[in-house]
């Protein structure tokens, strides 16, 4: 135990070495290499603009693209021109940062957010799914996959109010429409009913065969919900909408049929990858949220 106190028999060497090592360790913590501004363009870069590098590779590519010839064949003047443009662009980007455009300009913020999303998703997209994964995804979401149905539908409308039917009430129009439907179902022609009850064709340009998604756009969600369940030759009950009372006459209908896996594979693949990209983006956001300090004012929630 005497080793801890100084003994004339022992030298000071070991404790002194301890002192030196201790000081070196503490010095290594207290001091760091002094930062020096970069005064020489590092290899791999063509220029430094306010310490921000422009890649040589980007310069070569940009020159070849802009001058439409291989980089080796471009002249010094052409290269100077491209370099000047790239430096100008870098200066403008840096100025944009100084002006806090990422903070203040919606377009810049949108592009930045999309770029981060794309970067977060890219590694995930690089991993290709196996057939088994795709098939499992297909089976889990089978209702989504079907062939596109088609329909040819006449959309008749009895307008309520407005210039043409200023005195028409909804109840009166609905009663007329009920009668018209009865007559159509009894074999009256569409043209006769239109003329007799004052119906007009709501979408005269779309009374040809349409894919279901197009019909949904043209009819609107409310009418489409009725139309998609109808079969060829059927007449719908009157449907009250914002512009009047509608009657749908389905002239032809091919309903969608569920698609088997080989048929739907491409769509399954795309949606599977999109789902994974979305997950990667969500995880990225979760990570950012963990790192961030977010304070909400009293009474606010998200």
């Amino acid at each position, binding site marked *: *135990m005497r080793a*801890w*106190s*100084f003994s004339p028999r022992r030298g*000071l060497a*070991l*404790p*002194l*070495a*301890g*002192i030196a*090592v*201790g*000081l*070196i*360790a*503490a*010095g*290594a*913590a*207290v*001091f*760091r*290499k*002094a*930062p*020096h501004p970069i005064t020489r363009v590092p290899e791999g870069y063509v220029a430094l603009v306010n310490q921000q590098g422009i890649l040589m590779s980007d310069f070569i590519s940009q020159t070849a693209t802009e001058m439409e010839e291989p980089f080796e064949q471009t002249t010094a003047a052409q290269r100077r021109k491209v370099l000047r443009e790239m430096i100008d662009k870098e200066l403008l980007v840096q100025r944009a*940062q*100084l*002006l*806090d455009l990422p903070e203040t300009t919606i377009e810049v913020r949108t592009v930045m957010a999309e770029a981060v999303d794309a970067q977060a998703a890219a590694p995930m997209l690089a991993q290709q799914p196996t057939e088994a994964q795709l098939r499992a995804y297909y089976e889990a979401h089978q209702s989504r996959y079907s062939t596109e149905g088609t329909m040819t539908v006449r959309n008749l409308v009895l307008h309520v109010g407005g210039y043409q039917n200023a005195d028409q009430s909804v109840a009166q129009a609905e009663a007329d429409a009920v009668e018209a439907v009865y007559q159509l179902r009894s074999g009256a022609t569409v043209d006769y009913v239109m003329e007799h009850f004052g119906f007009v064709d709501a979408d005269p340009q779309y009374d040809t065969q349409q894919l279901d998604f197009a019909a949904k756009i043209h009819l609107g969600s409310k009418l489409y919900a009725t139309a998609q369940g109808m079969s060829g030759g059927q007449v719908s009950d009157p449907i009250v909408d914002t512009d009047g009372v509608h009657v749908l006459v389905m002239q032809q209908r091919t309903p969608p049929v569920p698609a088997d896996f080989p048929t739907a594979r491409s769509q399954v693949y795309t949606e599977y990858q999109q789902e994974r990209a979305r997950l990667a983006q969500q995880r990225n956001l979760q990570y950012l949220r963990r790192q961030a300090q977010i*304070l909400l004012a009293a009474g606010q929630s998200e």
Partner: protein
Amino acid sequence: MRLALKCLALLALCALAAAARPAAAQSGGVSYSNWSLSGNLMILRFLLPVADARRLVGSDIPIETQAKVGDYLLDHLAVRSADGDCPAIDQGFDIGRVDPLSVQPGMYGFEIFFRCTDPRGLVLQDTALFDRLPGEVSFARVDLGGQLSQQLFTAGHEQVRVPATRPLRSAGIGRYLGLGVAHILGGLDRLCFLLGSLLLLRRPRQVRHLIAGLSLGYTASLLIALGGWITPRMTLLGAFIGFMVAFLSAQLLTRQTGKPRILALGSAGLLLWLAAVVLLAHGNLTVVLLAGAALFAGCYLAISDRFEQHLLGCLLVPALFGFLDGFVLPAALLPQPPSRRALLPMLLGFDVGAVLVDALLLLAVMGGALWLLRWRRLPTLKALVTDIAAAGLGGLGIFWMLSRLHG
């Protein structure tokens, strides 16, 4: 009785330490400006640490800090020429008269353009922060058509006049000497170290070793800082200075008790325990610092009775303190580094000022103590002071070290 007195002193100093702010031991704030004349336009770039900006605005939450600080600077920075005031001009777009800049982390940056009708007989004025932070120092670089000079704005020296007939000369060495003096006198930890070191002297004339050690340390830091190889991490440097204050206490106790083994093991053990705690929380450089300090303290205290009889033992601790303290100015200059040629007079002035005030302070206190001991014949005075100081320095030193490590 002596034990009770020690406990009382320790409690009093712990209370003092708890009441003190970690920053109280550090020097005042620092800001940076770059005045560049281009035609009849004086372009001013001003850098301000985020902490100072928040103290200025009075909020810990950075809401509109940038805008408020910008407005404040507009009121406190000015350029005048022989023709009168040079107004700050609107910079177009939606920037206004103060353009906030993106600068390095931990800083706010602003740019103001002053337009002079005739840029002769210029007077640059910087009164920013001196009303709120009296110890504030503003390092300025002035570029008048390629002629560079380094200036210093402090409370009471808030203007720089550009001579009409000769180039503007950089602030003289005397200004930096004053900065060194203010740095020592304004730092409680520095004063504690110096006064504590006096108590370790076996003979009055050993004060020359103390002064020589400090001078050696400052000289070494000057040479290394001029080389520009390394720069300190200021938080850890502050913590290590705190450790050195506490280390004086351990040295005093070793001397008083005559039990170097216990003190060496105790000090090293305490520091290693702290290192282990830090390692569990987040392993980083703090662990290395604490482990190094533990090794240093353990080995030094174990041989202190013999080691302090050697010249190296007398010089080592003050030299170490001087070395660390000498890096304060180079670190402060880092956000706006001057050229090496301009750096020499700045560091020389600062270090000479620090050593001078150290020496004068040590000699004055030593003289006073000798006078007291000789004429008042109070044989127990030194023992009493030593006991209180050992407790106080230990408490304060550990407080400074931990509070700075914790940031």
